[in-house]
């Protein structure tokens, strides 16, 4: 088993790469899913900055009201600060309350607060809140109440809220975390397998090594068998590391039908990545090229298949183009699992179909590798 031992000596030299990509995957998942699982409805909180030029109790109370449903961000009253905060998306909107706003409001002069938006949807919440608040103030003021009484009454009125019920698939938040983790493995698996298996293939395909192996007492078939065993074992070990991490991060979710289907999907994709890496390894002669190919293939497929950016945000022609790569089908499996709450045959068939397509890509890469090797020998 001299070839097999050498195989894992090379893997050991590149352990840093495996650790780095696994760490990136785990860290990105933790950062992106840093919100609580919820069974009850929770309103989305937007980031709002308020610049107040009108010192009045009604406006102070308005700021308190906005603060309840939003994160108030402190920024300076400066044009450059506004530009920077909106551009960097530090705030979704900036509200500027002009001088004498309250006086004009109570005098029925219909004054306006200015809004500067960076995110239309998120600032819509604040627009609704603002209009509602000042319309209610206007009503109370017209009934003859003074400022103190208006504030007391409006606070009571604003406490009245509609009942919201989450029905059906109420664990979407935890499912989203799982979806995010496994979708990111698209990048990690491609990067790790292409780099390590590609490097090993390059080393064993070097002319000097091939010549040395040809005259060695170890038969060529035995060498190829040991290499194959190495590929299989490496694939299983790396896949298992990711499964263990998924169990550590999402304990309860992983011991469900949903978790099991994610695990099967990731195994299918890991096998196909190994086949792809094997194919790339047969094409490349120089080790120095591997990192370039690894970066282009892993980043490229992750960008166009919806692993990094949600597929709904991608252009439809790009999404259609990505169908000719296994990454598209892997992300497809993950999305179906995120979206499915029932596990009958109707729901499972498309998932099984995607598994088969992913594995067919693997077979295609092996066939292509054989053709390349045959062509090179000629």
């Amino acid at each position, binding site marked *: 088993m001299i070839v097999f031992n050498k195989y894992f000596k090379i893997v050991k030299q590149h352990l840093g790469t495996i650790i780095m990509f696994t760490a990136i995957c785990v860290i990105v998942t933790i950062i992106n899913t840093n919100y609580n699982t919820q069974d009850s409805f929770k309103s989305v909180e937007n980031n709002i900055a308020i610049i107040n030029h009108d010192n009045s109790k009604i406006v102070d109370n308005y700021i308190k009201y906005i603060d309840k449903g939003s994160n108030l961000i402190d920024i300076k009253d400066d044009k450059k600060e506004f530009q920077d905060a909106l551009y960097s998306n530090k705030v979704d909107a900036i509200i500027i309350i002009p001088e004498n706003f309250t006086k004009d409001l109570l005098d029925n002069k*219909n004054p306006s607060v200015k809004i500067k938006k960076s995110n239309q949807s998120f600032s819509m919440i604040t627009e609704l809140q603002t209009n509602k608040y000042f319309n209610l103030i206007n009503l109370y003021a017209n009934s003859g109440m003074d400022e103190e009484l208006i504030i007391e*009454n409006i606070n009571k009125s604003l406490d009245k809220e509609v009942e919201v019920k989450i029905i059906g698939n109420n664990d979407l938040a935890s499912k989203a975390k799982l979806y995010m983790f496994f979708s990111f493995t698209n990048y990690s698996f491609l990067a790790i397998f292409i780099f390590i298996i590609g490097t090993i293939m390059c080393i064993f395909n070097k002319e000097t090594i091939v010549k040395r192996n040809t005259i060695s007492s170890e038969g060529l078939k035995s060498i190829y068998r040991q290499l194959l065993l190495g590929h299989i074992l490496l694939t299983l070990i790396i896949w298992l590391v990711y499964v263990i991490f998924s169990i550590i991060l999402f304990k309860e979710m992983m011991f469900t039908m949903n978790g099991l289907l994610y695990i099967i999907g990731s195994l299918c994709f890991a096998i196909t990545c190994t086949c792809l890496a094997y194919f790339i390894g047969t094409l490349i002669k120089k080790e120095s090229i591997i990192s370039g190919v690894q970066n282009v293939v892993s980043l490229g497929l992750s960008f166009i298949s919806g692993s990094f950016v949600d597929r709904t945000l991608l252009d439809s022609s790009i999404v259609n183009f990505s169908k000719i790569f296994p990454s598209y089908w892997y992300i497809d499996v993950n999305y179906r699992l995120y979206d499915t709450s029932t596990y009958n045959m109707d729901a499972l068939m498309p998932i099984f179909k995607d598994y088969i397509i992913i594995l067919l890509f693997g077979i295609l890469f092996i066939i292509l590798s054989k053709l390349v090797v045959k062509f090179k020998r000629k």
Partner: protein
Amino acid sequence: MFYHLFIYKLKILLRKKTLLFWTFLFPFILGLFFKLALGNIGAAFEFEPINIAVVNNEEYKLDTNLNSIITSLSSDDKNKIFNTKYVNEEEAITLLDDKKVAAYIIIKDKNPELRVKSSGIQETIIKYVLDQYYQTNDTVNNMIKFNPEVVKNGILNLVAKQNNYVLDDSNEKIDFTLNYFLTLIAMTCLYGGLIGLEVIKDYEANLSPNGARSCVSPIHKIKLLSSGLLAGFVIQIVILILLIAFLIVVFDVNINNHLPKLFLLSSVGCLAGTLLGTFVGVSNKKSEGFKIGLLIAVLMACCFFSGMMGSPQVKTMFDEALPLFAKINPINIITDGLYALFAYDTFDSYYNCLLRIGVFAIVMAILTFIFVRRKNYDSI
């Protein structure tokens, strides 16, 4: 002699395929990925009317208040918030299950209820609208309690009149994808470090056999180094011009205002990158692979802190948490300078960044000089 050295170094550098991949092809490929992935992202921040369903039962028909709120917010004008479908309860559930609507509203025992699949921005907006129904009802009750005259004197009619107290004053220049392309230009400038590393390797006796050969040649070291660095700098400038042209013409990135200033800052950035590479090359005796790895890792980390690999908030977060590092991070300096050209009416921030990246280049040059000067070897 200078011209001769310059031309040959240029030819040598242009034949280094791996070097050309990282300094030339990789930024283009990364730019392509950014465009593919982020080209449509602006639409995600735009508000689109939300699809909702309303269960059109008898109770809903009788509730004129809710009826008027939903109808007014569903009418085809600039205040449109909802695309509303009026259906029975079974159809509403099917629409929600099929994700055709974000939520459905049903009145049960005279109380409107909101049914959703999950918490989200659309669901929150719908909730705020329905909250208004309850809050307005409560306000009317409080008004009547406080002053029963409001029923007679027409004040209550104001309930139906919704004033707009918000004036849109958004005139800031916002393009959420721009920062990615600015960091890409900055990264391309600093990747000149790989060229600097390659140049210095051939002129330092302790770094390569070529370096040892160069050192015993009867040519002044300054001439050797400056011709090599100039060749590397010229390649960098050509790559930079091609990248900027590509971003503007092919990807339609909005950076064509103040092109001479953009080019000036990027050129100084290229110089800083090349000199950073020479410094990394001469400052230690590790292998070439280690130095390339170190340089790429440091530059990638600098790109990360400048917001290349995350949402737009990441850069702001690090700028606030690590202000000193943000001021000396070369990628961040170039990104900020280019952003200032795009966003501000004045150029003071731009000149500040130009000065900082210039100082960075000078410091790298001085450090390189300290390491390469007055070296003599008895044997290597």
